[in-house]
């Protein structure tokens, strides 16, 4: 009985008891969720355009952040360092297309998936060989002061992250819907062969998608790096983005955002109200369980394309 109360009644009483605290938890959750979305976005872009489940996205975030920090440590001004990192990510996209994807056209999805894990190893090793593996602080001049709104503590940095995520999504939406390249990307996502037959260059499209994913990775890297330092564990946030991904659906940009928010909020609430009951640190698996429960009802995620099977 005690246990039932502790699971089903007490947490809700706690929530009702101090709504301000609950609001704070929710806001922290939303802002963390935004950060997850940023990483998940990179996955979605590549999966949409090439059907590759890119496990290396997390390491690309790390790689971008490492390059940026490495350049800044050598005295390059921030704006130039960011530009140079973008160039590096584009170069990386070229290399990936040339040396990996091109040879793996028409392979099973699982082979491509494993290849991206191999890629993750390579990038991690190269990044750490070039820039060293110790923890680095990243400071690109994002304000980081706290202030209060209606008794709720907010952090300028988190708001900045949320704002830049919103801008990024808006830009991507415009890019996908109104530019020629964007249309071509959607065409490729729809049907590779049909896209090829109307003269869309598949290889170029892949380079573009991987470059865009690299850019999104850079933004995510800046945000996460500025918050918790640039280090190897940064690549592990990819694991946090995966439940976001299946929750939202692999093929949906809005899904990545909404999924990120649900996971972020759900995780924080669970950790704070139910965590102590279970011995803490449930954040690691809670997101996956949450996503699993969602999937049982909607196997394609919240916004994923409907899976139609024919014999």
């Amino acid at each position, binding site marked *: 009985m005690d246990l039932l109360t502790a699971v089903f009644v007490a947490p809700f009483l706690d929530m009702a008891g101090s709504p301000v605290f609950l609001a704070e938890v929710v806001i922290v959750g939303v802002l963390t969720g935004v950060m997850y979305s940023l990483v998940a976005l990179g996955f979605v872009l590549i999966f949409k355009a090439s059907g590759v*489940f890119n496990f290396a996205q997390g390491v690309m975030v790390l790689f971008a952040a490492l390059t940026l920090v490495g350049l800044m440590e050598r005295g390059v001004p921030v704006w130039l360092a960011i530009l140079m990192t973008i160039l590096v990510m584009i170069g990386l996209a070229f290399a990936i297309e040339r*040396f*990996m994807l091109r*040879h*793996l056209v028409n*392979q*099973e*999805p*699982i*082979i491509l*998936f*494993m*290849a991206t*894990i*191999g*890629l*993750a*190893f*390579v*990038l*991690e*090793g*190269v990044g*750490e*060989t070039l820039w060293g*593996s110790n923890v680095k602080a990243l400071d690109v001049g994002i304000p980081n002061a706290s202030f209060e709104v209606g008794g709720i503590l907010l952090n300028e940095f988190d708001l900045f992250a949320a704002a830049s995520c919103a801008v990024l999504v808006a830009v991507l939406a415009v890019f996908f819907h109104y530019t020629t390249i964007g249309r071509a990307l959607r065409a490729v996502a729809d049907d590779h062969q049909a896209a090829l037959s109307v003269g869309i260059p598949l290889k170029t499209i892949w380079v573009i998608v991987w470059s865009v994913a690299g850019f999104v990775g850079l933004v995510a890297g800046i945000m996460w790096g500025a918050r918790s330092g640039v280090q190897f564990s940064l690549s592990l946030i990819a*694991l946090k983005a*995966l*439940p976001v*991904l*299946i929750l939202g659906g*692999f093929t949906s940009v809005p899904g990545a955002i909404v999924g990120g928010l649900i996971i972020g909020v759900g995780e924080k609430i669970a950790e704070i109200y139910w965590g102590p009951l*279970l*011995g*803490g*640190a*449930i954040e*690691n*698996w809670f997101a*996956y*369980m949450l*996503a*699993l429960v969602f*999937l*049982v009802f909607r*196997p*394609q*995620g919240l916004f994923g394309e409907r*899976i139609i*099977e*024919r*014999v």
Partner: protein
Amino acid sequence: MIYREAGQFKTTYTADQAVFPIVQDRWFIAAVAFLALGVPFVANEYWLQVVLIPFLLFSLAAIGLNLLTGYTGQLSLGTGGFMAVGGYMTYKITTAFPDLNILVVFAAAGLISAGAGLVFGLPSLRIKGFYLAVATLASQFFLGWLFNRVGWFYNYSSSGTITAPPREILGIMVTGPEATAEVRYYVALAIVTVMAVAAKNLVRGRIGRSWMAIRDMDVAAEIIGIRPFRTKLLAFSISSFYCGVAGAMLVFLWLGSAETEAFDIVVSFDVLFMIIIGGLGSILGSFLGAAFIVLVPVLLTNAPQLFGLTMAIDLQKHIEVVLFGSLIIFFLIVEPNGLARLWQITKEKLRLWPFPY
């Protein structure tokens, strides 16, 4: 010329249905068995401990995952979690019942991990492909957390480590600090041989065929009368049984003591690499893949000394990682069907060689 079945006539159904119908294959297996039995006489402790024992236990885990991913087509990233169930449950059972034969304990722990596989396999009835792969990560993280947090599983020891207690079979020390590497090697070899033969026969029979039908297209398989519910869950539980026993071997026959880190997600990925590089849907491939993944890091670690190079340790570590990743990409590009396919091609070539016309 060397590998040719001409002149080998089968006169009974039993001969026709043999696992290795061709006499050259049987010789080959006999040679491998001879080598496997003889190797402790020539290899030193280092080789047994660093290469051969991990090779055997990872082969077993790879066979387990191959049954699930290669034969039934259910992509799983939870191997490490199921191996952890095996390891921790063996510890729990053998400390509770010290007199029980350790092999029985291994089997019991395998059964418990089969149960865990059954539970975490349930979502597979609704979700497929990469969605399922990510969903199986839930088992990986949840089980890792469980064994880390709940003291009951490691008998409330202060370090949170499980240590293999000394156990003997027929008066010979098999686990614990006093067991010699040779003994542990032979025990591992015996377990792996028995289970590999069982797996080989399993996939040839009705169950294996229903698995492959589900893999090739589950909707179609359902229409011809294969129950997806039963078949998929059976695959999950048998696969987890294999992984569980492998996990038990990892703690008791290889490392001697372990924490949950020994079963983290890296292990799951390694085992997945093994079956992809070895060959999906092939028992032989599981062995080849395990050999590759176990041997390559050992070679990479020792290579600089062979060439007389000295490097800073962290630099060497990074280069190792890069080389390992590049090798994986290279192999996937050159032979996406794995080493087992290469072996098959070699055999085809040998049929005609040296007179290819």
